[in-house]
């Protein structure tokens, strides 16, 4: 391995991760450029290099040179694309890490239905194997190894937040309760920035009469491994949660209001572990929707502010939870207005896919947020926006500040908890 150049390591990983699915994408792309029209990085900068399909170029080249049907024939005829070089990989590195939220909006406009976001995820495996990763993500990974949290949230800090929420709500939150039905995990952003979500869970689950707990060894849902593109790290992070949940013998693990976390554990999880879990993974929105329909958390007085709902890409577009948050919104507020393009075609906040953890991409992230700001400005008299993703929420706060927009940003669970009957 040591005598391999970085480019060779990356290319080997590219090829390893080019399965029949990725191959079909590379084969089908006709370079029509439609994807640019769906990408908030292109739309807000006008720079052609942010065209989604262009971001895949090095991996596509590696595939066409070494793995595609007729590759060796073309090589012999001198018609194969040239080797991917390290300079080229470095040139592309910001495109792959800073300018893609893996939001998947481009797939919707693509006449070939190419999943560029999923392929970027695979491409990052090559970059991470070659050590070409932005500093911000590297240090997040370091934190994860030390504390399990990309922001360095220790169990001590979590317990302090739990204690405060217990005090505010007057409801005890049991940690490490063996045999509970549900185990909740959170994103660091929620624990440190929006701890009221812990109180909201406590209130809602008490009302529903549902037994739940938080693990002291695996409370972190964010999977930096997925964002960096390191399968090994992603598995290590996931393993903690799976082991803790199985040790506590819970029936369900609740994925929090966090985008990538849901996909990482719900869809990629079993594949990374190579086995099915002994528990079911459910998203908090799914849980609340189910409890609501079962009449266990009846809705009370509605919030009468004019509100809209942001669709976190990994939960709505790529997670399939389209209707659930909307019916919860309808129950919780009397003046719910959809933004233009809401639902599966909604714009990403600009900070997903590890971009918000990457200080180098700060300006680009804020530029991309412009699309979101335009959507928000398009609603007259808007007072609050519900953002069911901790990471999106932090990006919103930065972005709204940058755009000088005065809006309250809420989590969905809190809104549901606040509008509960008799609360």
């Amino acid at each position: 391995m040591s005598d391999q150049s970085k480019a060779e390591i990356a290319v080997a990983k590219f090829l390893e991760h080019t399965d029949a699915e990725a191959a079909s994408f590379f084969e089908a792309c006709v370079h029509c450029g439609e994807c640019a029209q769906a990408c908030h990085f292109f739309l807000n900068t006008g720079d052609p290099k942010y065209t989604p399909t262009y971001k895949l170029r090095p991996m596509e080249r590696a595939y066409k040179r070494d793995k595609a049907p007729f590759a060796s024939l073309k090589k012999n005829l001198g018609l194969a694309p040239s080797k991917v070089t390290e300079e080229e990989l470095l040139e592309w590195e910001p495109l792959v890490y800073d300018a893609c939220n893996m939001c998947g909006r481009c797939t919707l406009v693509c006449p070939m239905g190419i999943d560029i976001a999923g392929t970027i995820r695979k491409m990052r495996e090559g970059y991470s194997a070659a050590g070409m990763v932005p500093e911000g993500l590297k240090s997040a990974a370091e934190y994860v190894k030390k504390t399990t949290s990309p922001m360095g949230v220790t169990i001590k800090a979590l317990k302090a937040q739990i204690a405060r929420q217990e005090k505010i709500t007057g409801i005890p939150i049991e940690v490490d309760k063996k045999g509970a039905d549900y185990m909740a995990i959170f994103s660091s952003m929620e624990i440190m920035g929006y701890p009221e979500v812990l109180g909201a869970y406590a209130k809602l689950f008490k009302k529903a009469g549902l037994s739940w707990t938080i693990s002291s060894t695996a409370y972190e849902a964010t999977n930096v491994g997925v964002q960096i593109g390191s399968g090994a790290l992603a598995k290590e992070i996931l393993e903690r949660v799976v082991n803790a949940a199985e040790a506590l013998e819970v029936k369900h693990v609740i994925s929090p209001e966090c985008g990538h976390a849901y996909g990482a554990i719900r869809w990629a999880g079993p594949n990374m572990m190579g086995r099915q879990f002994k528990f079911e993974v459910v998203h908090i929105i799914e849980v609340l929707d189910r409890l609501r329909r079962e009449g266990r958390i009846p809705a009370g007085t509605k919030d009468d502010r004019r509100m809209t709902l942001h669709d976190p890409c990994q939960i709505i577009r790529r997670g399939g939870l389209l209707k659930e948050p909307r019916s919860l919104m309808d129950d919780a507020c009397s003046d719910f207005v959809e933004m233009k393009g809401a639902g599966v075609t909604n714009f990403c906040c600009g900070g997903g896919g590890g971009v918000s953890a990457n200080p180098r991409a700060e300006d680009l992230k804020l530029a991309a947020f412009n699309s979101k700001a335009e959507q928000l400005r398009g609603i007259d008299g808007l007072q609050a926006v519900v953002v069911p993703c901790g990471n999106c929420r932090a990006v919103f706060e930065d972005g709204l500040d940058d755009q000088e927009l005065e809006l309250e940003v809420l989590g969905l669970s809190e809104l549901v908890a606040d509008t509960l009957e008799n609360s």
Partner: protein
Amino acid sequence: MGFLDFVEGPLFVIAAITFVLGALWRVIGIIRIGRKKDISPPKGSAAAGFIKGNLRHFFPRGIFARRTWLHIIGGYGFHIGLFVLVFFAAPHIAFLDDRILGFGWQGMPRWAFVLVADVAFAGLIVLWVRRISDPVMRLISDWEDHFGSWLTFLVMLTGCLAMQQSHDVLRAVHMLVIDVWLIYFPFSRLMHAFTFVLSRGNTGATYGRKGMNL
């Protein structure tokens, strides 16, 4: 053997075989790369998603169509026009009847041919000039994109130039370009005509498993 007999006979047979076997080889080659079995508990059917994905992407979404209407009209105009020309131009039907199928069907009248050919040409020209005049397209296009467009253009052009059907030479030139096109096809990006089923289907299958209703 005359030139026309050659390009309609042996060369055409070689080209057609290359086309069929090459395209099969390539599609099978892509599928054979294989992929890991997804063991996450599904919420919906991947197979249904495969079909749905294929159908769904025929229809552009309104929110994007406002930005991409030119490309949609050009793309559909060209592709539909080309299909109609290939299968409903009277000389084509006669050729298929004679050489391959042994049966024919009703061809288009001349006015319809001109109309459809105009739509197809307009579409192809719009697609290509967009490729040279949009910075995004200039950045992402490579020689294959241009070569494929031009070769297809030549196939259509030579066909239309032979429309009077009074000179064998013109028919032979058309056939020659078709033979070249058929041989080039399986090795090139023209293969998108088949691979789109796989790419749309794969994405659709993933969405289907996740129970997404797009």
